[in-house]
């Protein structure tokens, strides 16, 4: 019976709102914009952080990436004509890292170079990645056609190549290309597979798997192309000797990632006079990104809280006026036999209906804004169920909280006085 009364109260609440359409609309406006901005901001924030988090996750949360970088003092000296800069990780570094730590389950060396490649009539510059088959375990990539590198390629030093989807498409390679030969630099490789590409940048980590990557066995890369890279720029020639561009390390447990990264750093410090390497920990970046997201959410929450507070005060203001205006009605209801609590619940329900409808309209706005942003500004936005349900519950709650005082005022109305009220 009581539930029935609540339903009827909700209906009469809606009827009362329809009776004063403009006033109801103006009263709701605060909640509408409060909730609308919360939904919109949440979806934009969620979209931005989701993109960053996804890219970091792709790097593997249990991985550590050690990259070669040109040390600062070296950079300055490259202006010298024909100077050869030697820096970065060495084969020895790789062997030491792979052997010294019990927490490391896998270590993968990576050699990177750009080479003009030709497949049939098409030719373009590809990024050649010399690595071991374990690479594909650390950075899983779905195989589109053929296979990835295997241990036999490594042992037999086979001149085989795995293309990446995007690069393959550019050079007009399809699944029918498997088994054909591709010319990389001056050498010929047999195409054995095509994998999906996952291009892009995440934070300051360059994702090793670029769109135009072609994977070849580590030892083959070393034998065919050597360690010296020559780059011609206007007026000068730059020669660089870099043995390994990256060492990817997989750690057995997320708990050990940071301690292992620290130990690797200490080890490298001992063998490198200059700091010509950089250690990136995706997990740390992930945590950082998540912390940033949390901070962003707190800021958002505060803004949302303030706007909902303002909206709530607006509602309270109008409801107090309404109570005064309807003093006589309250008196009539009391005289007929309504208890104080019934008057309170009537006004509470009316206020909640008002704020919930405001919330619903606000959600409508809030959902529309990200769609417009995505359409015109190309920014990714994500609308999660929470980003809709949370503001809805909050707006209903605002109605309850800010409706309580006017409702209690209504219940205090003395029926004798109220019945004489004009």
């Amino acid at each position, binding site marked *: 019976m009581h539930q029935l009364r609540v339903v009827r109260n909700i209906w009469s609440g809606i009827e009362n709102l329809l009776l004063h359409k403009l006033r109801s609309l103006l009263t709701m406006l605060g909640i509408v914009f409060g909730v609308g901005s919360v939904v919109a901001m949440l979806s934009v924030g969620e979209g931005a952080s989701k993109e960053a988090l996804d890219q970091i996750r792709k790097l593997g949360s249990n991985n550590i990436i050690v990259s070669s970088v040109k040390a600062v003092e070296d950079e300055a000296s490259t202006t010298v004509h024909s100077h050869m800069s030697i820096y970065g990780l060495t084969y020895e570094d790789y062997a030491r890292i792979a052997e010294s730590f019990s927490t490391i389950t896998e270590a993968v060396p990576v050699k990177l170079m750009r080479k003009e490649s030709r497949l049939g009539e098409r030719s373009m510059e590809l990024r050649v990645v010399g690595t071991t088959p374990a690479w594909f375990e650390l950075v899983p990539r779905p195989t589109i056609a053929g296979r990835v590198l295997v241990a036999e390629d490594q042992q037999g030093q086979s001149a085989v190549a795995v293309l990446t989807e995007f690069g393959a498409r550019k050079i007009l390679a399809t699944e029918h290309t498997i088994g054909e030969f591709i010319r990389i630099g001056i050498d010929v490789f047999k195409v054995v597979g095509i994998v999906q590409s996952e291009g892009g940048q995440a934070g300051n980590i360059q994702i090793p798997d670029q769109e135009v990557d072609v994977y070849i066995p580590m030892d083959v890369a070393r034998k065919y192309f050597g360690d010296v890279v020559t780059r011609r720029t206007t007026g000068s020639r730059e020669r660089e000797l870099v043995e390994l561009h990256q060492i990817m390390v997989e750690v057995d447990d997320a708990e050990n990632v940071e301690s292992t990264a620290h130990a690797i750093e200490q080890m490298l410090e001992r063998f490198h006079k200059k700091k010509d390497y950089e250690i990136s920990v995706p997990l740390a970046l992930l945590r950082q990104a998540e912390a940033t997201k949390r901070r962003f959410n707190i800021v958002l929450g505060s803004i949302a809280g303030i706007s909902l507070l303002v909206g709530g005060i607006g509602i309270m203001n109008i409801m107090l006026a309404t109570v005064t205006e309807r003093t*006589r009605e309250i008196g009539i209801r009391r005289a007929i036999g309504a208890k104080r609590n019934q008057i309170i619940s009537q006004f509470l329900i009316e206020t909640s209906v008002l704020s919930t409808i405001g919330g619903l309209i606000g959600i409508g706005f809030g959902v529309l804004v990200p769609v417009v942003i995505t359409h015109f500004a190309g920014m990714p936005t994500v609308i999660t169920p929470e980003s809709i349900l949370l503001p809805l519950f909050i707006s209903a709650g605002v109605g309850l909280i800010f409706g309580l005082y006017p409702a209690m005022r209504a219940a205090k109305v003395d029926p004798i006085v109220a019945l004489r009220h004009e």
Partner: protein
Amino acid sequence: MDNQSSSNSDAEIIRLDNAQKIYEMGKQQVRALAGVNVSFERGSFWAIMGPSGSGKSTMMNILGCLDRLTSGRYFLEGQDVSSINDDGLSELRLRHLGFIFQSFNLIPQLTVQRNIELPLYYLGWDARQSAERAQSLAYRVGLEGRLGHRPTELSGGQMQRVAIARALANDPDIIFADEPTGNLDTATGEQILKVLDELSEHGKTIIMVTHEKNVAAHARQQLHMLDGLIERIDGDY
């Protein structure tokens, strides 16, 4: 005027024992009821009369369970309601009393039907039963066909009929009418009084406050008040 306080038959529906109501007006005390002793029988039709300030409105509020005595006792159907709490008074009004006011006191945003249904809503009736009862009551007071109208679309007499229908919705033991014809022209007022006469004939107890002699003449007893006390009682008491 304490000769009635001893009677305590089954027919007695209301009894006041030394009823006092004192208002604090700043430093002054106003004795709106200065020790009233009276008893009303079931099925009687009373008019409470008196000049303004005589305490007749206070009397009405006390008897209508809208207000509490400062001292003394009020028995309603044998139950002592002098010290009952606010919710208890609401419950008494809801189940046993009906009200008709000078200014009708209909809720303007509700239709005639919803106004009549109001007591049933608080009694927890379901919508279908309430609607049926509202229809039969509207028929009884001559308002059939007006159920969907708003009070503002009705004449004064029609509005008072709605108020009567509403007062009857909970099938009350006592109907309180506070100057029921005060806002109506004489002819319309007569019609309303006729409705009250009919209700009285059907055995309802009616207590009506009025200052008009010809209106009071419809009641079988007239209780005249002065300075918070009963001045005299006329009629077949």
